[in-house]
């Protein structure tokens, strides 16, 4: 099991009296693309936020890259190569596009590398280059998602957690975003993808977990999940 980049054991998360995550096990190997699907309120976002350090778990362990993450403050996660593209994008709306991207490199002191990374983001999303001086809050939803993903790329993640990257976006933009996600993955970045659009997620990833009211009920290869009758009925709309 030493090749697991992330290993989650009996993770429980509760806040405000709600048990959102009720003891889940999960692992992700180096270089893998894993989907986490499930209905609204199943606990997917809470799981992702906990993995990213934004919420502290009530029980269980999260071992990432050999380190027990429970003891590490959230602002040290990014240095270890763990990045989250949060639900609703979480861009800094009154910072410019470029300033948002610069925030991705906050913990690096290598200005040359940061600027090179930002240029690379501009290469992938020429729209952002055109608007680099514009306040991010004035961009369209799709462009904001590009900022959020670009910002995560500038932090050079080893494990990228993506929360609903397709949410609220036009199909053509979703396609573009997923193209970029596949491209980032092809460079060896490990990913955990939370998606409402289960079909798209499973077509993109190699493995998947199905989450239902705080528990993982099915874990299988993406192919098997796509042909799983129960999954088809519940999440694939077939």
């Amino acid at each position, binding site marked *: 099991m030493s090749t697991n980049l992330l290993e989650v054991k009996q993770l429980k998360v509760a806040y405000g009296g709600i048990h959102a995550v009720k003891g889940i096990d999960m692992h992700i190997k180096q270089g893998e693309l894993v989907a986490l699907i499930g209905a609204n309120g199943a606990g997917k976002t809470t799981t992702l936020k906990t993995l990213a350090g934004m919420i502290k778990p009530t029980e269980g362990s999260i071992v990432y890259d050999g380190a027990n993450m429970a003891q590490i403050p959230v602002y*040290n996660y*990014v240095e270890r190569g763990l990045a989250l593209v*949060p639900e609703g994008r979480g861009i*800094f709306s009154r*910072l410019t596009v470029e300033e948002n991207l610069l*925030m991705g490199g*906050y913990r690096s002191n290598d200005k040359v590398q940061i600027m090179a990374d930002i240029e690379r983001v501009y290469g992938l999303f020429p729209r952002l280059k055109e608007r680099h001086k514009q*306040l991010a*809050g004035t961009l369209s939803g799709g462009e904001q998602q590009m900022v959020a993903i670009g910002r995560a790329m500038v932090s050079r993640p080893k494990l990228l957690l993506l929360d609903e990257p397709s949410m609220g976006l036009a199909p053509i933009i979703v396609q573009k975003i997923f193209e970029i996600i596949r491209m980032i993955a092809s460079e060896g970045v490990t990913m955990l993808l939370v998606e409402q659009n289960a079909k798209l997620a499973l077509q993109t990833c190699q493995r998947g977990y199905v989450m239902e009211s705080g528990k993982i009920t099915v874990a299988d290869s993406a192919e098997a999940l796509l042909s799983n009758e129960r999954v088809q009925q519940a999440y694939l709309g077939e």
Partner: protein
Amino acid sequence: METFIQQIVNGLVMGSMYALIALGYTMVYGILSLINFAHGEVVMIGAMVTITCINLVSSIAPGLPGSLVFTAGLLMAIPITMVLGFSIERIAYRPLRKAPRLTPLITAIGVSITLQQVAMLIWGRSPRSFPAIFGEDAPHKLFNLDVSITNIQITIIVLAILLMAGLLIMVEKTKLGRAMRATSQNPEVAGLMGVNINTIISMTFVLGSALGAVAGALYAANYSRADAYIGFMIGLKAFTAAVLGGIGNLAGAVLGGIALGLIESVGAGYIGPLTNGFLGSHYQDIFAFAVLILVLVFRPSGLLGERVAERA
């Protein structure tokens, strides 16, 4: 006409000090959505420490030039208020970070009263006079008119402009400034980016207190005195200035401070003639609070309040 120009000059002097203090309110509000009512007391302590230190320096090394002695006073007052601001946040506000909004607000009032009492224990209840280190400070005639401005007043305006420009450049152009802005907009995500939110919050208090100390020292120099009570009124006025400009907005605090100084000064200059002598210039305070009420009623977001909305 000359009265008017004179009131403008006085208003700019007052307004510069309001602006420096308003920045402290607005920076903290921008990051914590907390109105730090203890900030006026930090300003007062800045003023009192400056006076004490100037007396000390003058007695150790008499005959030094006034500007040098004043600088020495500032160099003492600034670090002390920085530590004070840092400690206030650490001790009084941080444990309440997740408490309902009203709790830290009440705490702020408590801190304010505590600081005032401590200041009274240290410096007594009666005013301390600001030593005459600048000699006579005879007023200059401005534009050959019957309008006067003193060296201290010139110093206040110049120093305030330099500090405000420095702060705005720091916030707009540096990495620390960017992190401060990011934290004020979305602290959770700023944390994900690797920003230590607690450090940024501490920095905000420290910077605001430093500006407050300078404002306090200038205030004492301008009025030739200071006492343990000055923090309340000057804090309230600067808070009004911050609300007028749009609380949370740095440029707004500067604009609101200057505007409030001008309104007050021009108002005080004309209230006598306008009411046939019924109300004198000592009623100048009503202008500040009339402005506060009008802003809260008609434009609660202030002159430069938030305009860019977050799009879903």
